[in-house]
């Protein structure tokens, strides 16, 4: 349109040409001033020719485009480069249109003016094109957005299977970025076992372009998880390339739900098959359209004999009308129903079912189906009935009703349980059977068999009692056991008889229980169950009755025994202290009149000796507070009678929660034993007194020896004192030696004091006091004390003491005395023939502690080894004869024993044994 570059030879007036062209042109001079604008410009912008200046034409550019435009413009000017851009220009009516702006240089000759180089700026209207372009871009944008954000995965693959494109959603769903997937074979993303099938689908798509195929397959995500997808593929031609478009949907959840549904359906089938119930469904009109296997097996019927209304044929005739009516009513009302009915089993036995029908309704509330279940409650029913019967029988037992009535009840219970049975119970009485109960058997028959013998072939019952085993006779007419009774039984048309022995808890046959039938019959498992229950119950009832007899007898015996033992028993309530039960003897022991009724607590307290009352009450209160046993002794003062000693022992009875209810107590008249005890105590005192006298007199006799013995340490002390003084008084005092002398002196003085103490303790007349005593120590002490007496008669004393022997429980002084007596005895025996006195300790095999004193003296009088311990028997010329008797009393009062025996050589040995205070520790 516009020639570029100066064409001097061009004759045409360029300005005119420019004026005519449809493009908008601005001609600018080198100084940027505007030479002119063409007509098209003027018409478009509405500017007059004089108006446009540089700023003017630029101001026509849309403000949004202006800055960019001017930047490009000035760049083009300064670099002298070509220029092409797009910008919007404002039209005269104020609207803007898009223009393509180009710049070109031209030589302009205008009239007389010399030609000048100008810049032509041409504006070509591109508004239409621009709009079309924008519209296209928008559409593209929409599609791209749709493609990228669609909740469907899109894949595009080439004919080789490589992925050309994938939307973001698709990549994300598979756990990848788009870039990670592009160019890779799409088949790789499928679960390996599915790949071949998918590859086949791809090929088929390419073979049939434009045709959409669908398939489902598993894909593997980047994290390794497997997802189920449903894909649609369509091969198209895209830029002359065959590509496959695939839209892909994740159907994993859907799949899972389907699988779960399938599983639960199969589970339901299993449940219906396995459930221990009979299950059926019925159409809304009440026709059964399904029963489970269990139902079919139970009835033994073919399906067509059950479905619809055929099932009613297995109902018990007595229940049929009732159940059918209830079912009809339910179908009518659409309400669920329940019923108990007997249903015939394949073997012909009717069993009780509990049935329930429940309607299933759809969302609109209309009944679509009936579901029904039946549960076999026959065992429960029977058990209930048997249990109720048992309870009835046990109540009869508890009420103490007569055995005949109880057994009668038992027989009737059996007859309720099984139809056609005639029950009989016979009691074992020595070698024969006595009539117990048989309410349904003919009287002449029971009379005839009453007193029948027990034997190896004595009908069912006599044989069962004989064998201690159940005897089943299915046919009385044929069984040899019935030889003696066959005619009798058959005459009363009894055909079968099963008899079972009834055992006591000790395993003794006490009765027989028999079930008679009027036809040949053998017991079913259920019959055996009933038999077992009934025989057990009969055992309990009969034994209980027998025990009651025994109990009555033993109560009589107890009363006798209490009377003999002066022992009364009673039970009293802890809260009120009231007696709940007292035995006959209790009255006599406590000194109350049985005719005056049970005494109150206060009356009882009034009888207690005033001196004992406080202690008695304290013990009882404590037993109540602590819920513990009590054992109390007290005196009672019966009116007009002598004081009696009573020992009362009580044991608390607690309820299951530990609450104290009562005390079970016995009271014993211990007056006699108390008096004996007092007598024993008096004897003990006498012994203690006598022993004391003996000690005192013995020590009196020993005075000279003891004085000698005590003078030993005193003499030593005096000598030491003298030596001490002399050592100190020397020209060169020997202080060290003097100090030793002084120490020695102190020791001597203590020795003297010890002897005095020992002697004094023997003088004491205290109450005997038991303590754990080391016999070795006692021996050492007595050896020390009697050293003087021994040396007076030139008797050497030697000890041989066993170490580690246990202590004995004894009164130390009395033990010393016993030993002293034996030692003095030995010394005295050697007055005329000085020798050795040996004292030994040891442990006997039975754990007792042994002490023996052996002398070499005159020995024992022949045959006197026992008599020697009696009082006033003495072998010594000056003996009082009491010493050994007291020694024996002392040893025996300590639970020990003493004996004397002659030595193989000269002299005698006295040995005593005492029980150890505590067992020797191992």
């Amino acid at each position, binding site marked *: 349109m516009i020639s570029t570059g100066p064409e001097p030879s061009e004759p045409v007036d360029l300005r005119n040409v420019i004026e005519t062209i449809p493009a908008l042109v601005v001609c600018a001079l080198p100084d940027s001033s505007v030479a002119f604008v063409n007509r098209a410009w003027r018409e478009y912008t509405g500017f007059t020719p004089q108006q446009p200046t540089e700023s003017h034409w630029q101001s026509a550019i849309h403000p949004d485009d202006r800055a960019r435009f001017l930047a490009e413009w000035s760049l083009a000017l300064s670099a002298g480069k070509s220029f092409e851009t797009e910008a919007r220009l404002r039209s005269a009516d104020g609207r803007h249109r898009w223009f393509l702006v180009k710049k070109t240089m031209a030589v302009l000759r205008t009239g007389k003016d010399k030609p000048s180089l100008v810049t032509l700026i041409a504006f070509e209207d591109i508004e239409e094109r621009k709009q079309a372009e924008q519209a296209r871009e928008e559409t593209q944008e929409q599609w791209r957005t749709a493609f990228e954000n669609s909740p469907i995965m899109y894949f595009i693959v080439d004919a080789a299977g490589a992925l050309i494109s994938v939307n973001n959603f698709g990549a994300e769903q598979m756990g990848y970025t788009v870039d990670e997937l592009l160019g890779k074979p799409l088949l790789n993303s499928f679960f390996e076992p599915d790949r071949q099938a998918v590859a086949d689908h791809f090929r088929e798509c390419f073979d049939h372009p434009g045709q959409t195929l669908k398939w489902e397959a598993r894909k593997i995500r980047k994290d390794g998880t497997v997802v189920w997808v449903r894909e649609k593929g369509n091969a198209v031609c895209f830029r002359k390339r065959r590509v496959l478009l695939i839209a892909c949907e994740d159907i994993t959840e859907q799949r899972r739900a389907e699988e779960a549904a399938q599983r639960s359906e199969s589970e339901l089938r299993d449940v219906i098959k396995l459930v221990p119930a009979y299950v059926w469904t019925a159409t809304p009109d009440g026709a059964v359209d399904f029963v489970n296997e269990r139902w079919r097996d139970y009835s033994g019927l073919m399906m067509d004999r059950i479905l619809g209304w055929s099932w009613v044929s297995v109902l018990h005739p007595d229940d049929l009308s009732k159940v059918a009516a209830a079912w009809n009513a339910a179908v009518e009302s659409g309400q669920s129903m329940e019923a108990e009915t007997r249903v015939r089993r394949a073997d012909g036995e009717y069993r009780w079912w509990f049935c329930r029908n429940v309607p299933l309704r759809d969302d609109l509330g209309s009944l679509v189906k009936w579901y029904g279940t039946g549960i076999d409650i026959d065992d429960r029913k029977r058990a209930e009935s048997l249990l109720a019967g048992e309870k009835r029988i046990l109540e009869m037992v508890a009420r103490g009703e007569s055995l005949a009535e109880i057994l009668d009840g038992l027989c009737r219970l059996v007859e309720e349980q099984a139809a056609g049975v005639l029950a009989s119970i016979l009691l074992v009485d020595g070698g024969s059977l006595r009539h117990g109960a048989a309410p349904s058997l003919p009287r002449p028959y029971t009379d005839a068999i009453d007193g029948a013998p027990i034997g190896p072939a004595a009908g069912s019952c006599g044989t069962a009692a004989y064998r201690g085993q159940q005897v089943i006779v299915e046919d009385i007419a044929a069984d040899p056991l019935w030889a003696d009774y066959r005619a009798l039984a058959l005459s009363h048309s009894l055909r079968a008889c099963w008899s079972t022995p009834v055992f006591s808890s000790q395993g003794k046959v006490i009765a027989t229980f028999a079930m008679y039938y009027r036809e040949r019959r053998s017991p079913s498992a259920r019959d055996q169950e009933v038999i077992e229950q009934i025989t057990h119950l009969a055992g309990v009832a009969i034994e209980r009755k027998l025990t009651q007899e025994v109990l009555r007898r033993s109560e009589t015996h107890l009363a006798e025994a209490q009377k003999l033992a002066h022992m009364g028993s009673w039970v009293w309530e802890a809260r009120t202290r009231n007696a709940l039960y007292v035995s006959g003897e209790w009255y006599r022991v406590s000194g109350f009149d049985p005719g005056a009724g049970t005494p109150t607590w206060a009356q009882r307290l009034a009888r207690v000796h005033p001196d004992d009352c406080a202690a008695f009450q304290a013990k009882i209160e404590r037993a109540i507070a602590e819920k513990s046993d009590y054992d109390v002794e007290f005196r009672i003062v019966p009116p007009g009678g002598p004081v009696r000693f009573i020992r009362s022992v009580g044991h608390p009875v607690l309820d299951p929660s530990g609450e104290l209810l009562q005390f079970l107590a016995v009271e014993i008249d211990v007056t006699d034993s108390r008096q004996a005890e007092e007598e024993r105590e008096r004897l003990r005192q006498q012994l203690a007194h006598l022993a004391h006298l003996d000690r005192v007199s013995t020590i009196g006799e020993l005075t*000279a020896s003891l*004085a*000698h*013995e005590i*003078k*030993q*340490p*005193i*003499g*030593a*002390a*005096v*000598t*030491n004192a*003298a*030596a001490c003084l*002399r*050592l100190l008084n*020397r020209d060169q005092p*020997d202080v060290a*030696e003097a100090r*030793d*002398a002084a120490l*020695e002196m102190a*020791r*001597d003085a203590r*020795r003297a004091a010890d002897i005095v103490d020992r002697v004094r303790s023997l003088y004491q007349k205290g109450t005997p006091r038991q303590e754990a005593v080391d016999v070795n120590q006692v021996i050492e002490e007595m050896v020390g004390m009697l050293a*003087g007496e*021994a*040396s*007076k008669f*030139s*008797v*050497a*004393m030697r000890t041989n003491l066993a170490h580690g022997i246990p202590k004995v429980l004894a009164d130390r002084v009395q033990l010393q005395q016993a030993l002293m007596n034996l030692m003095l005895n030995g010394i005295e025996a050697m007055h005329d023939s*000085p*020798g*050795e006195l040996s004292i030994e300790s040891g442990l006997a095999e039975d754990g007792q502690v042994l002490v023996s004193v052996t002398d070499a003296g005159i020995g024992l009088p022949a045959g006197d080894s026992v008599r020697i311990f009696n009082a006033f028997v003495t072998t010594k010329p000056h003996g009082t004869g009491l010493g050994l008797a007291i020694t024996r009393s002392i040893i025996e009062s300590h639970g020990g024993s003493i004996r004397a025996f002659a030595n193989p050589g000269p002299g005698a040995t006295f040995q005593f044994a005492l029980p150890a205070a505590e067992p020797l520790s191992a």
Partner: protein
Amino acid sequence: MIAADTPLVFVVDDDAPTRAAMLRLLKSVGLRAESFASPQDFLGRELPDGPCCLVLDVRLPQMSGLDLQRRLIADGVQIPVIFITGHGDIPMTVKAMKSGAVEFLTKPFRDQDLLDAIQQALQCQTETRQQQHEIGLLKERYETLTAREREVMGLLVSGMLTKQIASRLGTSEITAQVHRGQVMRKMQAGSPAELGRIAERLKLPESS
């Protein structure tokens, strides 16, 4: 400090503290002392030639002090004995003193009494020893006599004259005279009276 010829005191007592106290006392005055728990132990000890004495407890097991004293006398052991007892009675004391005890002390005794008794005992022993020595000499002399001379000596001691002796022995008076002279010379007796004392000391039986 204590010389070997210092008198030795033996103590026999069955009470150990008493023995120890005695030893201490004796040592404090410079005496040598040894103690024994029983007479048997003491009898096993060889007695020294030097001066010694025995302090003896009366009451002892198995063998009493008095028994020991008797045994020593019987064995001819010359040792002065001082008795000590815790409880002395008169018969016991008499018995002991009769058997030649130096002293009889009762426990508790005064130390000076014991020491005095020991001194006395030792002195007594010295005298006894002297006498025994003299008697020994006399015995030696006596043993040099012939049988006839001993016969003559016996008769002389009984107061016979030479003539009577000759008559008695059936010898001549001259022979008797010779025997008499021999006896007097051998026995170193100055006079018949002295010879009589010697005979008495030798405890010769008197001829009758």
